[in-house]
């Protein structure tokens, strides 16, 4: 591996500086005593205080976590079970199902959101409901739906690497097919399941486009609340909120990164080379 040239280094530096400048400015002005985002009037934690006293934000955060947990758990179970079922199918059947699975990922989010809104509106009309049916349940259905492809696509590659003979051997040794699955197959696909779950959870926390169309006025998530917040002209507490979220994400990523490099060191010691 050659050393990077000075030009390469400068280029990397330039891109990352531009990428992080807006975030740095935002963090800096979250500590501003004044309301401006260009004129620093002194250090203060008043926007953080305002944030912690804002019941709506806390409620939205709570809603987001409930929704993300519920949708990620359901999508992970449903998706993993589906991946196992699909793996036993013929090639053309697998291909057909994967095409359908890919649809929500290929379609723009706005079309997915709109199509679900239309389904709920149509179902509401069929049920003869006067008021909008939109709320927690419709949001949950929408989130499970856009989470499912990510779970299935995380589990499928791991599942295809599991040796079928292992399961057969377990059955020859007296396991029932179900027991063989839980004892042999499941432990080896856990990494795929965990990846799928994490992806589903973070996607659900982050989603805003599909939620705009499938959430009613009765249930708001954090992204939806932030969206309504940014409609007002000046909002310094958004800076405080963004900073807090940035720090949480940063800590999470550092942990994941540290875990990976520790794993790598272990592998190297064992002499395992990729």
């Amino acid at each position, binding site marked *: 591996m050659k050393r990077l040239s000075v030009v390469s280094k400068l280029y990397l530096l330039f891109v990352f500086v531009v990428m992080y400048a*807006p975030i740095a400015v935002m963090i800096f002005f979250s500590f501003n005593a004044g309301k401006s985002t260009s004129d620093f009037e002194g250090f203060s934690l008043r926007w953080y205080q305002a944030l912690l006293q804002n019941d709506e934000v806390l409620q939205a955060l709570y809603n987001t976590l409930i929704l993300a947990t519920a949708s990620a758990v359901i999508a992970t179970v449903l998706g993993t079970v589906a991946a196992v079922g699909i793996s*036993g199918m013929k090639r053309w059947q697998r291909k057909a199902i994967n095409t359908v699975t890919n649809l929500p990922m290929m379609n*723009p989010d706005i079309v997915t959101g*709109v199509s679900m809104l239309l389904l709920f509106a149509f179902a509401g009309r069929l049920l003869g409901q006067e008021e909008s049916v939109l709320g927690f349940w419709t949001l949950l259905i929408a989130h499970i739906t856009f989470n499912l492809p990510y779970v299935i696509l995380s589990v499928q590659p791991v599942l295809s690497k599991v040796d079928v003979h292992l399961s057969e051997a377990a059955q020859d040794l007296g396991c029932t097919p179900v027991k063989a699955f839980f004892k042999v197959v499941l432990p080896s696909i856990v990494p795929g399941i965990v990846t799928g779950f994490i992806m589903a959870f973070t996607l659900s926390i982050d989603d*805003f486009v599909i939620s705009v*169309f499938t959430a009613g006025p009765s249930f708001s998530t954090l992204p939806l609340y*932030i969206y309504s917040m940014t409609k007002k002209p000046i909002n310094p507490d*958004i800076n405080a909120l963004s900073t807090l979220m940035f720090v949480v*994400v940063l800590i999470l990523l550092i942990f994941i*990164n540290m875990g990976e490099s520790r794993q790598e060191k272990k592998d190297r010691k064992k002499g395992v080379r990729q």
Partner: protein
Amino acid sequence: MTKRKGFMQRLLAAPYLVWAALFIIVPLIMVIYYAFTDKNGAFTFDNFSQIAAFTHTFTLSIWLGAVATVICLVIAYPLAYIMSRMKPRHQRFAMMLVMLPMWINLILRTYALMNIVADTGIINTMLSFVGLPPVHMINTQGAVVAGMVYNFIPYMIMPIYNVMTRIDPPVLEASRDLGGNFFQTFRRVIFPLSLPGIVSGITMVFVPSVSTFYISTKLGGTMALVGDIIEFTFIGETNYNVGASMSLILMAMILLCMLVMNRFTDGDEEGLIV
């Protein structure tokens, strides 16, 4: 016995298949149904003739989305190449820097960028500090494109970086040994091998750029893109029929662009286009 077992295994996919039919297929049928009917459910082409007034919006969306995609590619390609040549430990750190902003909500990232390019934002404050006239940046097409690039560039860097790391160094050495200079190696070896990543990156940037509805309202002022019009038609006007026909056209346009794109590759890397 094995036949029955295979059937039981395939049956596991049943709950997902029901879910996919109900919440992926049926909603898309709903879009078509609403697009071709009026408020009373009678068949009509009227919705589409109403959209004719927005032809300019559709072409503008495609144009700005395409410009943003090209800029992303131009910035991301050398970046991904440089990253793939770094030491593994540095690569992981650089990858973390690329992914970190993606974990921050799109609304917050856009809001942060808006604060920087605003007329009274930090850039103009700095300009006036050194005695230069202010530059009007916000509410221009350039600002909207900048917002798209800023938000979606990680989606371009990641797939290209992934294919670059898979290029075997001996392949490059072989090209050099055979007398190829850097440009020949690039044109004959690196570029063709990285094509699947490029195609996948273009898809992942172009689709959300064309269909965005937040970036354009925040950074484009009165400018409206397709996403804005669809959002307004559904949420503001609650005119589901016209909204559905717009979504249908947006979907068809993006599908068409994707088909044209996929012509450039053999299509054997279908797993990469996520």
